[in-house]
């Protein structure tokens, strides 16, 4: 089975496989392992096979839509897709919301030839922790089913790692693309705020929310971003800056780039013993690709992390207030507590958060005059055990929320494993709208390493077929 979109695309064009074969293989993995992993909330097998057959017919007729043509992809179930209802993994969301329509990001994937195979698991509304008492799967990590895959784009990350699809869409309000990407050993991108339209997505914190790709490689994420980026006037936060050909910007060389490295020591209660040596080796690979690296400290790390955690809760509470009043027990236990936090902030607190965001953006812009990219760990340790799940523990280990307060693009790439065999990740952040530089660094790193091609034991036999 092909592991990457690029490999599958090359095989398609060489006549070595078909989109129908790719989709059948992906569905077979889902048949075999979804009960153990909880990747899907809905599967669209018939529609996907029909779309794959159309993709094959188009290619045979010489109509090539590009790198995503005929590629099976999964969509986080906060994002509307025409094949089925959107649930937000919640009993609360009105099932009429988003019915029979695509979010712009999904419509763009479809226009680029992608085959939508299903909707994937999430934390309820993108927040809290899985509640086994609710009638939804608790997602599990393909590297160890005793562990959590991270959230909230849990299913999209685990599904890519397990080979149930070759790419996916997630949303990221405090790290929900990057954290599960790191914990599942795949690659995930939070684009610049406004780069990808987020209308058609169930909101969490509208000024913190981003839609972004997950795949095995930075190259594949670049292909997905190229398809979904661009202005949509229906999203008031959408940027009208022209989007680029992000895949075309991947040169493999980082010559002349200055990279600031902050290991974020002391920023989490727990830290994997292997993390620092793994990060040092990863930075050495970036140097070997031509970059220079210098130690830096992210300005206002604590403050901007606080801004995201509290500000997101405040914005989310505005959306959920009436439902929380009427249907408290219909929400998952972790979700309703996380949302209720938003009731405990004052309006002045909310405005002060916005003042701190601006000050943080200025300090960060100053730092980006001295470096071109910033590297940090994505999480302080590997995946938490399922029975230890708790909102505070997860939020503490994820070193991601900082970037949602400021809006810069950030990629997470796999860089190694803990001694227990759980993946670790590295964030690569850039200036606003410089996704190309971030992806190029991830691609150059992956040209020199093989972590992104590692396959979990749980699916090794299936993916080798």
């Amino acid at each position: 089975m092909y592991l990457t979109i690029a490999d599958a695309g090359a095989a398609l064009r060489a006549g070595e496989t078909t989109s129908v074969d790719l989709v059948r293989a992906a569905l077979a993995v889902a048949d075999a392992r979804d009960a153990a992993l909880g990747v899907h909330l809905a599967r669209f097998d018939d529609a996907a096979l029909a779309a794959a057959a159309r993709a094959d017919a188009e290619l045979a007729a010489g109509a090539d839509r590009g790198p995503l043509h005929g590629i099976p992809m999964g969509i986080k179930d906060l994002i509307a897709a025409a094949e089925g209802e959107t649930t937000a993994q919640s009993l609360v969301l009105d099932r009429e919301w988003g019915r029979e329509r695509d979010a712009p990001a999904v419509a763009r994937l479809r226009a680029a030839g992608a085959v939508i195979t299903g909707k994937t698991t999430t934390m309820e509304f993108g927040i809290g922790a899985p509640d086994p008492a609710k009638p939804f799967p608790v997602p599990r990590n393909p590297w160890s089913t005793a562990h959590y895959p991270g959230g909230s784009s849990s299913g999209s990350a685990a599904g890519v790692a397990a080979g149930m699809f070759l790419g996916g869409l997630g949303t990221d309000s405090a790290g929900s693309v990057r954290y599960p990407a790191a914990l599942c050993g795949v690659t995930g991108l939070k684009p610049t705020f406004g780069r990808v339209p987020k209308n058609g997505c169930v909101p969490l914190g509208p000024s913190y929310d981003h839609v972004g790709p997950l795949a095995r490689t930075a190259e594949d994420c670049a292909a997905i971003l190229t398809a979904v980026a661009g202005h949509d006037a229906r999203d008031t936060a959408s940027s009208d800056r022209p989007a680029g050909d992000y895949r075309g910007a991947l040169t493999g060389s980082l010559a002349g780039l200055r990279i600031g490295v902050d290991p974020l020591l002391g920023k989490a209660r727990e830290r994997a013993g292997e993390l620092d040596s793994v990060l040092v080796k990863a930075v050495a690979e970036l140097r070997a690709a031509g970059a220079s690296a210098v130690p830096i400290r992210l300005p206002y790390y604590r403050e901007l992390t606080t801004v995201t955690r509290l500000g997101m809760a405040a914005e989310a509470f505005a959306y959920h207030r009436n439902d929380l009043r009427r249907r408290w027990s219909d929400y998952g236990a972790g979700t309703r507590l996380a949302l209720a936090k938003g009731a405990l902030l004052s309006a002045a607190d909310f405005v002060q958060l916005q003042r701190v965001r601006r000050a943080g953006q200025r300090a960060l812009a100053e730092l980006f005059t001295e470096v071109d990219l910033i590297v940090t760990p994505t999480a302080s340790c590997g995946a938490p055990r399922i029975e230890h799940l708790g909102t505070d523990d997860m939020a503490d280990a994820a070193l991601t929320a900082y970037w949602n307060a400021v809006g810069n693009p950030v990629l997470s790439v796999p860089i190694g494993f803990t001694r227990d065999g759980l993946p670790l990740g590295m964030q690569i952040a850039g200036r606003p709208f410089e996704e190309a530089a971030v992806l190029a660094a991830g691609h150059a790193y992956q040209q020199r390493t093989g972590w992104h091609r590692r396959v979990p034991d749980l699916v090794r036999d299936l993916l080798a077929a």
Partner: protein
Amino acid sequence: MNTEAATVVAALLAAAGLSPTPEEAARLAAAYPGWQAELAALYDMPDARYETPALVFRPEP
């Protein structure tokens, strides 16, 4: 248990019309002083003292 925090949190939750269980209210009350300390640090941040908030209002919908 910080009784002042418990009182404030109970009042804020009631004002918002929320009905958590006693255990849930206690969890929120236990976390509340920490959140307040984090917020206080944001008000004390010198670079934010004269900063314009990152709020945008557009005259067209």
